[in-house]
């Protein structure tokens, strides 16, 4: 313990050196901006900064990337809260609660909560990385596609918490999303599924088109056509975020659980921030005494999901630093940066490159502290857009959705899909079909299929593998309970006259 503290102290001093600190700040700014723009993901922005690291040393390179990583996972929540446009799939649960809070005049509170929960989650996971990385990595290494499948199923099972009025409607929406995820060329056999000869469907439906269309365009149409004119919708007097330091104490439960889920799920190689945000949101509703408030602008849902997203950053770094295995797409790019500089991450890294490793870990701590200030400034800049009159704002949201979809593959087909999903999003709202489960299905469905088929191949098509491994069995049992319990409760409830 003493040795770790000493190394961490030395790492902290090194991370605060002007060049290293500058790289962290630059990375945070790039990450927050890129995360906030739909169509430009956090992983894209890490890839974009990779060429600039060739001429740097390994420490400033990694600190730049860590800045982008920590800022990127948070950035998408700003536009999610303000405009119902999540920058990344991982920010979707934050958007569900944050946007409703914003519409109810609690923009400042929602932004402040998102900043603080992200920072606390990221800080806790960085400390976890510093003190408990090696033993955790040994345990996590024993997990396989079987456990990953169960984690994703657990995330999908939380769909039962997303249907505000009807669990059946939520299931329809979820399964429709999972079906959309099967369109395109199947990975194992290379067979085209449900493309019906349409060229752009052969590469599948990109979830970003679904995300932007359903949330942003659907919302613009909703605002435009409701009997109440859009420019008379109530807007908060001020949108300057406030940092609710004391307000976090009553929310310590969701904050703790969200961070813990983030670290654990992030620490499972391949799971990542998106799965952890969905799982922690679903879990939080199960813990809640007022589950009916979720989806209506409920702070615990936002805190749980946001803390888990940043909590997953430290978890994902554990695999990279201790085993040399990237735990997510972002850390895979970071592995590339290590290899470019001739360093092979792995069990020996902590002994051969002690100073560099602890500077990187300390850099994560510094990045999460700095994110409070930079996140505040970024939120302030974006929040000023809330003062723009609705006709102008809604028009430019549509144009930005166009650009976000087009930037995916420079293909107008993605723009078409986005706009069509926008109309679908509006229709779904009118038909009382919840939108979030569909998005969840598109994102998590392909992951579930991949893990399921891998498990089947590795076990010789033995389905019992999912119940004979204890972690998987526990997660699946929990998933069944989550689905069956509210369903049974709804059946026992008498139909109102």
């Amino acid at each position: 313990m003493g040795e770790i503290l000493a190394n961490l102290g030395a790492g902290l001093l090194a991370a605060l050196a002007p060049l290293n600190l500058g790289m962290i700040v630059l990375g945070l700014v790039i990450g927050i901006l890129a995360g906030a723009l739909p169509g430009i993901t956090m992983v894209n922005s890490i890839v974009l900064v990779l060429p600039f690291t060739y001429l740097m040393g390994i420490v400033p390179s990694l600190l730049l990337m860590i800045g982008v990583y920590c800022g990127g996972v948070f950035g998408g929540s700003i536009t999610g809260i303000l405009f119902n446009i999540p920058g990344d799939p991982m920010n979707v649960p934050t958007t569900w609660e944050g946007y409703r809070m914003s519409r109810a005049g609690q923009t400042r509170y929602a932004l402040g909560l998102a900043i603080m929960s992200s920072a606390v989650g990221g800080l806790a996971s960085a400390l976890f990385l510093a003190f408990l990385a090696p033993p955790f990595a040994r345990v996590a290494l024993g997990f396989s596609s079987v456990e990953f499948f169960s984690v994703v199923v657990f995330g999908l099972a939380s769909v039962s918490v997303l249907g505000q009025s009807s669990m059946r409607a939520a299931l329809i929406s979820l399964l429709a999303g999972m079906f959309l995820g099967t369109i395109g060329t199947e990975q194992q056999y290379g067979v085209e599924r449900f493309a019906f000869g349409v060229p752009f469907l052969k590469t599948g439906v990109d979830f970003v088109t679904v995300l932007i269309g359903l949330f942003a365009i659907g919302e613009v149409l909703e605002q435009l056509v409701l009997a109440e004119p859009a420019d008379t919708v109530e807007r908060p007097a001020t949108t300057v975020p406030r940092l609710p330091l004391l307000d976090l104490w009553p929310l310590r439960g969701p904050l703790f659980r969200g961070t813990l889920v983030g670290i654990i799920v992030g620490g499972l190689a391949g799971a990542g921030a998106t799965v952890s945000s969905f799982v922690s949101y679903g879990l939080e509703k199960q813990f809640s005494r007022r589950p009916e408030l979720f989806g209506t602008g409920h702070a615990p849902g936002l805190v749980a999901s946001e803390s888990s997203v940043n909590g997953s950053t430290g978890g994902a770094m554990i695999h990279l630093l201790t085993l040399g295995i990237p735990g997510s797409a972002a850390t895979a790019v970071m592995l590339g940066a290590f290899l470019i500089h001739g360093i092979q991450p792995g069990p020996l890294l902590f002994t051969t490159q002690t100073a560099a490793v602890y500077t990187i870990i300390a850099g994560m701590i510094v990045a999460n502290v700095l994110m409070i200030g930079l996140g505040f400034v970024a939120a302030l800049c974006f929040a000023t857009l809330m003062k723009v009159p609705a006709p102008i704002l809604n028009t430019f949201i549509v144009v930005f959705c166009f650009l976000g979809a087009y930037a995916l593959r420079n293909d107008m087909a993605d723009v078409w899909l986005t706009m069509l999903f926008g109309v679908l999003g509006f229709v779904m709202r009118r038909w009382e079909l919840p939108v979030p489960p569909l998005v969840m299905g598109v994102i998590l469905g392909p992951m579930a299929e991949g893990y399921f088929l891998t498990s089947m191949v590795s076990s010789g098509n033995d389905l019992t593998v999912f119940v004979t491994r204890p972690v998987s069995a526990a997660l699946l049992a929990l998933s069944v309970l989550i689905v069956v319990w509210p369903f049974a409760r709804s059946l026992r409830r008498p139909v109102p006259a």
Partner: protein
Amino acid sequence: MTRVLAPLGGLVLALVLLAASRGLDEVAREGTLGPGFWPRLVLGGLAVACLAKLAGEWRARARAAAVAPARIARARLAAAVALILLYVLATPAIGFALASMAFIALFMALAGARSPLVIAANAVGGTVILLYTFVKLVYLPLPKGAAGFETVTLALYRALRLF
């Protein structure tokens, strides 16, 4: 009515797609799960969920009439959807710059903006800022339009010193 239409449509679509999934497993090796297994599982689940929803609506049919959805401006909705689709349709033909300028002006007017000066300023100024950001800074190859419109777009790019 819509409470029944959605699950009914979902049920029909799931059954049609289930039928379309026949033949997907022809490439699968003996004794292994083919590429059609997962979609069939999902579509089967979708059909069951739609049936359950229909049954639920049948049970609750007495209260169905009591809930009326919020009123919407149908003409405005049709115009908004048409404008958005026209924007996407026109962009490859006339280029992003001209299409966006026209879309911003028309959509703002539809959304309730009244001042012609504000509309024009946003249409022109907004498009120029977008072009600088996405063409000059991000190097996004936005559609320039076909035939004569490409010449117009390129002239605009040169005038704005984007090239």
